[in-house]
């Protein structure tokens, strides 16, 4: 009886070890690139650490500083949430629209698909520089055209109330990634369902609501969640646009603060960089990194919980 039990336990252990061995590449990657950095960030959020001298414990001091004393946290949080809500929503809607368009066109399919996808391949820095020049209030062609049409053109990246919409326009231009995903999802919807609905007299809106949407809801959810995570990491475009539009380019010994104009393009990732690597305030930077993590988790959980209610109601 004892021998049988041991043999069974041994088999279980061997099975467990085999499973662990197969999982080990992922476990090592997860531990090294997620668990350890996350634990370190939590650790440093309670420390005073200037990246040179050994860290010293300061309790909740960094948390208090970020939430009650640091004036740039509130505008950065507001800008980040604005971009998450507005930019992600518009990107998903626009991406779905373009995806539907390129699946419907009869001629020049290859051209349209390529034309809409190509901007996504442009390096973010180059694309942002291009947009800042195009939307330059003084010399840009967009405002010249709008002016010729009698439209009072905005100052885009030079106006605090237009800088985030300008970044959104840039994000919509590079919609190629979502277009491809939605195009694949739309082509995957069974044609018989559309045929049956048409026979029942369903119109275009009804077909979209009752057939297309439920079928592609997992893809929409994927686009929203990855969009939220990407936008919470939004760094390159606002940094380049802000610096370039401000007219003050970084030069040796010159530190250009992010957020031009009037901190309207300041995002939380920029704040993490500024606090951590320009002001050597690792503790406060870690607090903001954890806030970002919490916001990303909250959005993801909320979306996951609401998924069925929002998109597959029928």
């Amino acid at each position, binding site marked *: 009886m004892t021998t049988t039990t041991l043999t069974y336990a041994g088999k279980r252990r061997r099975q467990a070890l085999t499973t662990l061995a197969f999982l080990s590449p992922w476990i090592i990657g997860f531990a090294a690139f997620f668990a350890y950095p996350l634990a370190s960030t939590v*650790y440093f959020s309670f420390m005073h650490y200037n990246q040179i001298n050994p860290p010293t414990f300061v309790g909740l001091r960094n948390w208090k500083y970020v939430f009650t004393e640091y004036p740039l946290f509130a505008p950065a949080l507001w800008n980040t949430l604005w971009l998450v809500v507005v930019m992600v929503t518009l990107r998903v809607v626009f991406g779905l629209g373009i995806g539907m368009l390129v699946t419907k066109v009869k001629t020049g399919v290859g051209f349209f698909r390529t034309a809409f996808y190509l901007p996504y391949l442009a390096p973010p820095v180059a694309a942002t520089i291009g947009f800042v020049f195009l939307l330059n209030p003084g010399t840009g062609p967009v405002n010249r055209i709008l002016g010729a049409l009698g439209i009072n053109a905005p100052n885009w990246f030079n106006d605090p109330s237009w800088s985030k919409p300008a970044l959104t326009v840039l994000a919509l231009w590079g919609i190629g990634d979502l277009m491809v995903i939605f195009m694949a999802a739309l082509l995957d919807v069974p044609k018989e369902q559309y045929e049956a609905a048409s026979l029942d007299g369903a119109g275009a809106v009804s077909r979209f609501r009752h057939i297309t949407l439920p079928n592609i809801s997992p893809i929409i959810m994927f686009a929203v969640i990855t969009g939220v995570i990407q936008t919470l990491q939004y760094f390159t475009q606002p940094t380049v646009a802000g610096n370039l539009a401000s007219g003050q380019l970084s030069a040796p010994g010159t530190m250009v603060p992010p957020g031009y104009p009037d901190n309207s393009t300041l995002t939380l990732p920029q704040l993490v960089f500024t606090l951590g690597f320009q002001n050597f305030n690792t503790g406060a930077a870690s607090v903001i990194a954890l806030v970002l993590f919490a916001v990303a988790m909250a959005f993801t959980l909320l979306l996951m919980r609401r998924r069925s209610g929002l998109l597959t109601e029928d």
Partner: protein
Amino acid sequence: MRRTALAILGAAAATALLASGCTANVNGGAYDDLSKKETITFWHGWSQPNEVNAINANIRAFERLHPNITVKSVGNVTDDTINQALRAGGDSAPDVVSSFSTDKVGLYCASGLWTDLDPFLAKSGIDKAKTFTAPTLKYTAYRGKQCSLPLLGDALGLYYNVDMFKKAGIARPPRTFSEFKADAEKLTVRKGDGYRQLGFMPDYHGYATTPTNYLGQWSPTYLDARGRSVLAKGSAVTDMLTYQRGLVQALGGYDRLEKYRTTFGDEYSTQNAFHVQKVAMQMDGEWRTVNLEQDRNVRFHWATAPMPVPDDQADQYGKGYATGTTIGIAHSSRKQNAAWQFVKFLTTNTKALVSFANAIHNVPTTYASLKSPDLDKSPTFRTFVRIAANPRSSTLPPTLNGSQFALTLSDFAYRVESGKVPVARIREGLKEVDHQIDLDNLQAEM
């Protein structure tokens, strides 16, 4: 339950050990014997061919003078790379390091990452106050600790278009801010809702016209002896911001000026607004003299002068804002005697300083080199030499958190110049700025 708790405790302890393990710092010292052959490593940020050739020429001159010491030079290194290497220490870390930014001097000195050079200066019999110009000593030390020395500097002055001045009937560059405002208005030619030509672009985002650069003319006190922000206490910052708002309004208003500013080309290109005659006057550093000389499209006559001063400080005309490159010895270096010989040569040898200054068109940082007959004699460059030598020229004080206090002040200054903060509220607003800077500094010093 107990095993889970133990596991969590173990994981937390391991994390703490790992996290703190990343912060090791290796102690060096002046243990090396100068009579024996030694190789030291020098990391710097110069990358342009003329800059690299110039620094290499100085290195060769040093090696001829000190045959026992060989210098291994590594260029185009950023401050972040230097920080990482010095934090890690070891044989691969540099012995001598230089930085274009004065922002980190406070951190380098307070943390001990860069060695205190006072004992070396004393040992070599160098009186730093008599050797280096006053502003450069301020930005290379923190709370009395001289952990770096100046290696060439920058001074800011006024560039003006002589042809436009003649056409407007202005005989000489302005010396006080009242004259400056009058000249700027006289030199401005409006066209529709923009300008055909602007006397001066005052906006704080206009190239080098940043609030702190500008403030050099008012000689402000940023921090008191205890390190507390005192911007609201004196009249310098209030006066400067009040003047700025008046100048912006006199030249057409913030919105009009900002719109015109968006038509300016890149600061470091031939499309710079002064190069293409969009502005008649511009605040800029000595490096612009080379840019203007090399730009074939600049066919107008231009000259340089110190920036004007407030009317009640007219006798101080000639001062300006100064900053520059710093050089120091890594705390982790075990060859600090050899490293000091090299730093001493680069920062105090008049011939080395003058040849380097002439090659890269920066301002020398010792009194002896400023007086050298070999220094570039062109009058446009000499203006900046005089500004740098002026004892009333000023700079920003080093702090532990880079230039965070300057950015807090700048944010407020942007709101004043645009009219979001009325002139009557400037002093009240500066008190809030002081409070914020104190909070930030306290956070950095914990």
